[in-house]
């Protein structure tokens, strides 16, 4: 099979050419479908902006009714304390009512989130204030209950609300709002989406439309085809992740310093992308129809994203969910990115997560090679 003395590559060189061919096709395909690439990157950015600005924000102007039945000096102190919640933190919009039934009716109609009753004969030994809250809205209920209880404790201790001394707080790192805290998670989400589009979806489409026959009948080894699919998916997912990181740096400036952490962040993105792409390859090693992807997407998204600690600290999870986190590659990608981007940790702090991501990729790659359908 030589023409003019040319001998086609065989062995490892053929494997490399095979990987290159799979990647070349994946990149050219995606390049000609920019909508797909842009939407892959846009989704996490929208996620960052909407989720970051809608979750974990301080409550403002929650309607509160206060019924002062006592009319004594203690109730006056309590009213001053509640007023300070409105004028200071802007936590409440307070309405003082004389009639308890009217206040409770307003609560049931949704006009107030809570009613604070200062009962007749209010005294330190009792009777004490009553808090009646709308517990369908747990966040408001908890915030109001906590703030009003604090006021009563201060008043009943004889210090008065104005005298309440702030507790000492020390922050180890510069101030971060929730959007910034979410930024590394959003980079991981971009990696997840990118690897799904370029890795999982492409493999399935190839199977559905018969393109994959063009790969299967060639002398390129199955291992090289698997590596090609994982690598192609990982590079595209890395591009999506890196693009989102750059957006994040613009929208939610993070305390990142120096070229080292930046380079380490991009390497983390690539290693995380490899691990996620290898999951898609393994899942679709035998699947034939896009319906499998539709069925799996929600499950995989939930199974990888939420246990990773993307939205809430892993320490709050029950034991079974922590064990999912322990094998979730996004946990490790996220940990490394948070260390680098938010905590300014040295690059060496990323070695354990990187090692996990590489091992995970290797295991999934080998399993994909075992399960990969080389036949139709």
């Amino acid at each position, binding site marked *: 099979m030589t023409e003019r003395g040319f001998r086609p590559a065989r062995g490892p060189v053929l494997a490399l050419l095979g990987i290159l061919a799979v990647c070349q096709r994946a990149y*050219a395909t995606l390049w000609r479908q920019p909508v797909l690439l842009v939407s892959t990157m846009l989704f996490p950015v929208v996620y960052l902006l909407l989720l970051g600005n809608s979750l974990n924000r301080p409550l403002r102007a929650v309607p509160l009714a206060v019924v002062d039945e006592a009319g004594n000096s203690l109730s006056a102190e309590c009213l001053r304390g509640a007023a300070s919640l409105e004028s200071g933190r802007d936590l409440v919009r307070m309405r003082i009512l004389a009639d308890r039934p009217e206040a409770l009716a307003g609560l049931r109609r949704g006009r107030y989130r809570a009613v604070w009753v200062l009962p007749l004969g209010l005294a330190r030994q009792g009777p004490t204030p009553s808090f009646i809250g709308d517990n369908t809205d747990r966040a408001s209920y908890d915030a109001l209950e906590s703030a009003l209880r604090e006021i009563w404790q201060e008043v009943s201790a004889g210090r008065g609300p104005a005298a309440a001394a702030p507790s000492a707080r020390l922050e180890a790192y510069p101030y971060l709002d929730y959007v910034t805290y979410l930024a590394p998670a959003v980079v991981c989400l971009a990696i997840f989406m990118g690897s799904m589009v370029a890795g999982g979806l492409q493999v399935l489409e190839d199977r559905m439309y018969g*393109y994959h*026959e063009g790969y299967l009948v060639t*002398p390129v080894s199955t291992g090289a085809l698997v590596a090609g699919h994982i690598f192609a998916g990982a590079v595209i997912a890395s591009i999506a992740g890196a693009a989102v990181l750059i957006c994040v740096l613009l929208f939610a400036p993070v305390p990142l310093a120096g070229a080292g952490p930046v380079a380490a962040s991009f390497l983390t993105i690539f290693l995380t992308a490899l691990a996620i792409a290898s999951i898609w390859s393994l899942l679709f090693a035998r699947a034939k129809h896009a319906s499998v992807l539709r069925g799996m997407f929600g499950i995989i998204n939930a199974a990888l994203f939420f246990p990773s600690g993307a939205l809430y600290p892993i320490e709050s999870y029950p034991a079974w969910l922590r064990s999912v986190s322990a094998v979730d590659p996004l946990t490790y990608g996220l940990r490394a990115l948070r260390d680098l981007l938010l905590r300014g940790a040295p690059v060496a702090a990323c070695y354990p997560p990187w090692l996990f991501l590489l091992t995970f990729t290797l295991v999934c790659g080998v399993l994909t090679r075992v399960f990969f359908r080389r036949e139709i």
Partner: protein
Amino acid sequence: MTPHSIEAIALTKRFGDFVADNAVSFAVPAGETYGLLGPNGAGKTTLIRMLTTLLPPTSGAARVRGHDIVREKTAVRTAIGTVSQAITTDENLTVRENLSVQGKLYGLWGGELSRRIEKRLHQVGLWDRRGQVTRQLSGGMRRRLEIARGVLHSPKVLFLDEPTTGLDPQSRRSIWDLLGEMKASDPELAVVLTTHAMDEADFLCDRVAIMDAGRILEEGAPERLKRTLDTGEHVAIETDRTVSDSDREMLLALGATNWRSPVDRHAEFQSRPGEGIGRRAAQLLEEKGYRIVHLTIAPVTLEDVFFSYTGRGLRE
């Protein structure tokens, strides 16, 4: 003796209780174009998939260029080129990119890859469209690109699974010409072709195998198969008056079969091919005083041979 490019011995493929190919044996020497004809579900595509390593046989054996299709898959894949029923070129890639990807998968690279891409694109008439995205090509052009892709690495055995399905006559003819040129440029190239178009098989194939229900029913050169048919040639004679019963008996004795007279003064019958029965019948009728108004002698086609073996019933 020239080794066979393909040799299949009792090749069988079962899917559960269904037997797609049942002990199929055949051989294709180098340089031959071999056609697999058969109705849908006859087992042609399954047979090709086994020979191209895409399906493992249930039993039996086959060798392609001397390599076992089960134990030496990589060597088989290196030796073959395939053009499948499905379009396997990526519609998002340009014509050139499709070939570039394919070439790498066969170990071609650098200047040699570029040279072969140019050669094949000139050969299939797509050089001027090398930068065009494949989805913009017509059906015929895409088929030509598929063929260029299948032969880019200069295989010694080429499998073509219904390569002209759905194409207009001009595109079909251009693909026939293209295959002729390829055979001329590489006399060792063995081609296995499946098709439902009998004229295509007749034009392209040195030998054909007629398959049905997973078996090869008959095999041979198209001309030989046509000659073996007892009632192949169609003869239609229009005379100035209706042929009498006694004269009809005379023609039946001559070798005419399946006599029918759809309208007055028209007679139709069939006869063995190559024996000139139609012309002799017309001469005899003239000698009996009939005036021959019109005489049509339609030669046997491969389709007649096909129907004689597979019947005319529809398949599932």
